[in-house]
């Protein structure tokens, strides 16, 4: 079983790793690069806990092969804050208690950021459908949706 050398850009850093072609991008991020913020909840694209951006597109990293990342850019939860400055979504999730166990949180934050970049004023329904592929078993989604709406308002420059 020969491994393939992959060069890719993760959160702005050029990185290299050796991937078995059967390994998912999620496996490579977690086990080759030590980026364990992306989680595996299902391995079948049904829970969204592994959400990352691949060349800007929101994807489940469990449904991408590690070798497919060659030459691409990957953004994960670890790259969401600017140093110690949290993205407004991250801050609002803590303020609104939009997480309980926190396991689904990285994937939801990555997905919500992708939403707000293409729609700066989503309705509650738009948020709920956009995030339908991100399962949360703890919160019932209420506080998650409110946190996303509040972060969107802040990003638009409106008072909360």
């Amino acid at each position, binding site marked *: 079983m020969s491994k393939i050398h992959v060069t890719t850009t993760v959160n702005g850093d050029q990185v290299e790793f050796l991937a078995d072609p059967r390994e998912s991008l999620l496996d490579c991020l977690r086990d080759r690069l030590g980026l364990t913020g992306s989680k595996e909840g299902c391995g079948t694209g049904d829970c969204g806990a592994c959400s990352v951006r*691949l060349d800007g597109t929101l994807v489940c990293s469990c*449904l*991408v092969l590690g070798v497919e990342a060659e030459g691409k850019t990957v953004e994960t939860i670890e790259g969401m804050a600017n140093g110690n400055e949290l993205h407004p979504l991250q801050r609002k999730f803590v303020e609104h208690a939009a997480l309980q166990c926190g396991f689904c949180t990285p994937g939801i934050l990555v997905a919500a950021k992708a939403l707000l970049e293409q729609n700066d004023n989503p309705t509650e329904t738009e948020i709920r459908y956009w995030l*339908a592929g991100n399962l949360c078993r703890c919160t019932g989604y209420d506080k998650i949706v409110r946190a996303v709406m509040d972060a969107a308002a802040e990003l638009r420059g409106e008072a909360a």
Partner: protein
Amino acid sequence: MRYHTPSTFEDAARLAAEASGITRFLAGGTDVLVQMRAGAVIPDDLIDLKKIPGVSEIAQTEEGGWRIGIAVPGARLGAHAGLCADWPGVVEGMELVGSTQVQGRATLTGNLCNGSPAADSVPGLVAAGATVEISGPSGLRSAPVEDIPAGPGKTTLQPGEVISAILLPPRGTAGGDAYQRFIPRTEMDIAVVGCAISLTLDGNSIASARVALGAVAPTVLLVPEAAAAITGTTLDDDALAALTTAVEAACTPISDKRGTAEFRTEVAGVLARRVAKIAYARAKGAEA
């Protein structure tokens, strides 16, 4: 497992033809990776088609139809204004496949080649009269979409054959299409029943129609009797009743974890009525 990245469909077809073990093509990967992960299918050769030039493009054909590359993900279809204006039913079918994340990867071609009778994008393609371009050891051929599925998990593609594009005919004037499915939740489920209808109008009267059903038989069905039931009508109550009867008669579903045979048959009729009204309204000029 060997991972290949051919740069032409000819090379892809040759790799597949020469392979002796289990071979899979990789486009969006949303089915192949799940099967690999579950240990259900571990290919000996995995042929990634995304490095072939043009596979991620949507282009208008000379006749006014559309040529859709095999690696175009659902999200790109939904963002394409021209395609959405012509074939909203095809696009909405594809957009129902999986989550936002899956939409970033999953493709029409993959959904078709997975061979599921419940594939959300296939009824819309069948109703639209879409064809596929197939590259194989003996060159190019084309086939109607409805000829590709051969039963759950199976296609009529021969060893060494690979779909190289999906082609939608010109929409023309006074046409409309639509797709709906029934699922227990609001998102993330496999269709329990799906129905797509494409039709054209002559004034208020339906000039032509194609009706396709998903998840009510071993393959997606094209139901000419259902089309005949509404052709020549203004989609009045009698026509809708005839449509329901024809659709229900065409259903030969199974009972499984997603629904009973009775439920699927009943709801197929319900969806056909709802979808016909939307397609009709779109043909009359309603916004998708």
